[in-house]
């Protein structure tokens, strides 16, 4: 994509392209650092397509080609085919059920030959993003109506449902990030607050003893009543609301969470949640034990171990880090899933606190840039799409990094442009280039 070709480069937001290129190269270097062994022929390694880093380089080139193609497409094409692509996404997701191959306990991957594979649940985020933007940008959509909100939520969550069926809870959670887009488009903040509170309550339930948590909740309720005592004198309804919320909270921690752990989540998922917060999960019955063992049999590693090794690797980086290829933990396979889910360890160990903050800074700049771009769009479609991309990126980045530093359960979500994997690199790149393409036509109103 030459800058001199006015056909493509007109209106292209170059900072995004540069950030994309930089992240991809950092990613390839990190995969190289994680998998390179002393004595390997570097050039041969990069050309052979047998090493992870050489394949990642190939995916990068493929993504660049795809990017050029996307830039050559008319932006109206995306609005026109948004619904069609959503249908295609769902079709791919359904195609998994007869054609999947089991890899690491998931059932969401279609294989082509030996080396290449496709994970539709990942790719589908692009199509959902397009479809959601399309729906929200319709003139007839009034997003303040609950019915519209329900439709929008369904567009986002139907693929999530299929993902759960494919044993990919992590990827299913990604679709919840589209609620940020809906929030921007007028969804009541209460939905976000409630969602967040619910998550916080679940974590608190795991961390704290049952009765203590109930006591704390009661204390908070009493405190709020004390603060609002004057308003309550005027309107009794507030008191009722507070008591109601308190009642719901206690109900959730007392009954809903245990119910969810026993009946909704699988035993291994519950175990991962416990692992993430550093508690030991004691399975309730023999079936649960079997299930955990079955799940572990495929992976042969314990997530608790993964997380502690990952924390050791990152923690040992100290302030300045050990330098690329100098990290003892990441180089000698102490951290499992090193080039995929736990790629951030390479940065953490190699470049320390300073390097990690700078690296995360690049992501923050990328996200802020995307919000800025979103806000400068004339068409709702482009804005929604831009927010969608930002939300999906944000979810991936925060969950993946939190998972490596022990703040979130290990749910197998890749780090954009960093984690090894063709589907994820292509998905993220395609999203970004569609955004760039739409942004190039920011003065147009797309429907």
């Amino acid at each position, binding site marked *: 994509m030459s800058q001199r070709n006015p056909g493509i480069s007109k209106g292209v937001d170059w900072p995004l392209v540069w950030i994309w290129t930089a992240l991809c190269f950092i990613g390839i270097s990190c995969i190289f650092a994680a998998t390179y062994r*002393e004595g390997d022929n570097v050039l041969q390694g990069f050309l052979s397509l047998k090493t992870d880093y050489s394949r990642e380089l190939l995916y990068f080139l493929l993504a660049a080609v795809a990017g050029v193609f996307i830039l050559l497409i008319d932006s109206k094409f995306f609005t026109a085919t948004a619904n069609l692509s959503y249908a295609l996404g769902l079709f791919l997701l359904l195609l998994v059920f007869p054609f999947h191959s089991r890899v690491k306990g998931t059932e969401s991957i279609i294989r082509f030959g030996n080396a290449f594979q496709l994970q539709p649940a990942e790719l589908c985020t692009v199509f959902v993003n397009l479809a959601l933007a399309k729906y929200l940008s319709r003139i007839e959509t009034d*997003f303040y109506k609950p019915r519209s909100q329900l439709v929008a939520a369904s567009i986002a969550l139907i693929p999530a449902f299929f993902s759960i069926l494919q044993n990919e809870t992590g990827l299913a959670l990604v679709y919840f990030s589209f609620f*940020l887009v809906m*929030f*921007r*488009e*007028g969804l009541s*903040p209460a939905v976000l607050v409630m969602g967040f509170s619910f998550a916080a309550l679940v974590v608190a339930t795991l961390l704290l003893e049952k009765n203590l948590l109930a006591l704390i909740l009661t204390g908070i309720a009493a405190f709020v009543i004390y603060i609002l005592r004057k308003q309550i004198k005027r309107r009794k309804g507030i008191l009722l609301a507070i008591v109601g919320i308190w009642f719901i909270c206690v109900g959730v921690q007392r009954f809903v969470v245990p119910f969810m752990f026993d009946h909704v989540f699988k035993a291994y998922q519950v175990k991962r949640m416990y692992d993430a917060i550093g508690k030991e999960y004691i399975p309730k019955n023999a079936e649960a034990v079997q299930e955990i063992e079955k799940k572990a049999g495929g992976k042969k590693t314990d997530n608790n171990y993964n997380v502690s*090794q990952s*924390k*050791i*690797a*990152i*923690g*040992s*980086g*100290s*302030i300045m880090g050990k330098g690329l290829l100098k990290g*003892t*933990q990441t180089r*000698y*396979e*102490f951290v499992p899933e090193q080039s995929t889910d736990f790629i951030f360890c390479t940065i*953490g*160990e190699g470049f*320390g*606190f300073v390097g*990690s*903050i700078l690296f*995360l800074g690049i*992501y*923050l700049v990328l*996200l*802020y840039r995307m*919000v800025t771009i*979103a*806000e400068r769009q004339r068409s*709702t479609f482009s804005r929604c799409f831009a*927010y969608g991309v*930002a939300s999906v990126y*944000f979810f991936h980045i*925060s969950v993946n*990094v*939190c998972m490596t*530093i*022990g*703040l979130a359960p290990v749910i197998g979500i890749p780090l954009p442009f960093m984690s090894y994997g063709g589907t994820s690199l292509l998905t993220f790149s395609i999203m970004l280039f569609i955004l760039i393409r739409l942004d190039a036509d920011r003065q147009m109103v797309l429907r």
Partner: protein
Amino acid sequence: MPVFNQSRSNIIRLIFAAMFLVIAAQLFNLQVISSKYRKLAQENALFPKRIYPNRGIIFDRNNKAILNNAILYDLMVTPSQVKNIDTNYFCQIMDIDTAEFRDRIQDVKYKNGGSFRPGIFQDLLAPDLYAKLVENIWQFSGFNLQERPVRVYPYNAAAHILGYIGEVDSAIIHRYSGYQLGDYVGRTGLEQYYEKQLMGRRGIEFWIKDNKNRLVGHYENKADDTPSVAGRNLRTYIDVNLQQFAEKLMANKVGAVVAIEPKTGGIIAMVSSPDFDPNSLTGPEKKKNYAKLNLDVSAPLLNRAIKGLYQPGSAYKPIGALIGLDEGVITPASGYDCRGVYLACNHPVKCEHKDPGHARTMRIAIAHSCNSFFCNTFRLTLDNPEIHSVRRGLMKWKEYVNAFGLGHRIGIDLPSEDGGNIPDTASYDKEYNHSWNSCTMVTMGIGQDKMEVTPLQMANAMCIVANKGSFFTPHFVKSIDGHSQDDTVLDKFSVKHEVLTHIPDDVYEDVISGMQDVTEIGTASAVRIPGINMCAKTGTAENYLTVDHRRTKLRNNAIFVCFAPRENPKIAIAVVVQNAGFGAVWAAPIGSLLVEKYLNDSLRPESQKKAEEVANADLVPKYLVRVQFLQDSTNAARHAIRTHDSSSLMKYIIPSSRAALLDTFKKVTILPRLSGPSIKQNMLKPKDTAKVIKPDSTR
């Protein structure tokens, strides 16, 4: 278009920023505040490999290495790499079957907690097996040979002197810094005494290991590594040929030999018998061998030369004469009209000689070892009219004897030397309730009663006589390679102790003449060496032991002390053979043969014949067989009570197997092995034994 929602973009930005702040805070916590992760990472990935330096070599006086290092090889296996090998051929070389092969591989896997780390398949390979393997090792992937330094004793001699090394125990780790579990440290002998000099300095190499514990390379290009420094060699006074010869002479006997160079205090040979093969405590069987030796009631691990307490008997007499002469209670012309018994005290003390005139002068009394003369001299010393008190007399006498190096630790360069015992007034006050006189301990004048000394002390006393009053602390090590100013360990051995030089030389000459007469006309005239003026004294001490609640008379302890040649003493020797009989018959030939061998460097044909005769004589006390039987049966009974398994006890009860058992005990030429706490105590602590064994007379 809901434009009024634009403010929400800021909220979204805020959410992004908040999340990054949370992540940054946790990163700060992990990477900056918490230091444990760095340590954990090092534990994960760093393997400090200790590089052991060669221990110092010990040389004898002719620069022959008597304690050396050798490289043996261990056959290592990395189970995960064992692929496509000809197992049958391999087993044929190793002389094992395939089941054993599988067992050993499993064993390595189990010990290493996996199959990725190399473990020992077979340690300390025999040389011929090593040769076979080294040719074929390329065919066996996963197997490799690894060097392993071990201590070897090329002359198979001087086990007690040289000592052995063993793994450190928690007490040593606690007391001395710088040792870790798995390190080897000198446990006895010179190996222990000169540990600091011999061990050298260990080095450390930092290696990086991966998640399967495989070592993958050096850490930081060896920047933090420290090289190892080899231990320093010891040059000793030991003459290994003489040492071997002495060990040969002492075979199948219980006792000790010490030979010292009077001019330097350097120890030429030191034997404690029974001894053991020092190489048996280095190889793969060392634990088993050590247990065997440790349970043996004849205590082969005990160094009797420095820890065995014996009554010197008549060997004390030259010292008694010197004390009497110096105190002025006798003169060289003094005599005693002995008729075969000393009757001046309540209980008679027998003398071997009845003919009148065998003690007409001091010189002749020494030559014939007249008990009456020396009892008399002892009493004269104690009841010295110039002192006026037998109490002061005894203390004065004790002062003299202590000055001769008896009754206290000399300070030899071996650990755990015993001091012996020269009684003072307090011990007699206690035993006789303050009412005693010179008659009470009259047999001390002939080296008995409560007097107990070690063979080393006897030899050292001979050095003092030979040097006419002075001595150097007996020691083995002449010099340490790489000697520097900071080394003070050998300083105390270069100090000349002039303890008894106030006694005039002519007094010494009188006594020495008497000692020369011992080999010319006296008790040891049979072992005279033509051309060498040897000054000597024999001793024979009766002793008793309570076995089966009965006080039993045992055969006499044979003792012999000497130095030679008279004009220029080059060697002083003390020989003790337990329960052998006459000192002149069993101990004197050993001493004489050693002198001849050392001074002439070769033996006359008749001496060679004599040497064979002595070496082949089996003088192991027979009471040990009975004692062993008692201990073994007691242990078997205890075992039966504890475990309700009486199978081992039955052997001691059924008469037929009883007889067979006793018979086998007798057939064992090297002392029978006994296990049992009480008899072991008796044998390992000669002090206790001394309470049981009481001498009655001496000659």
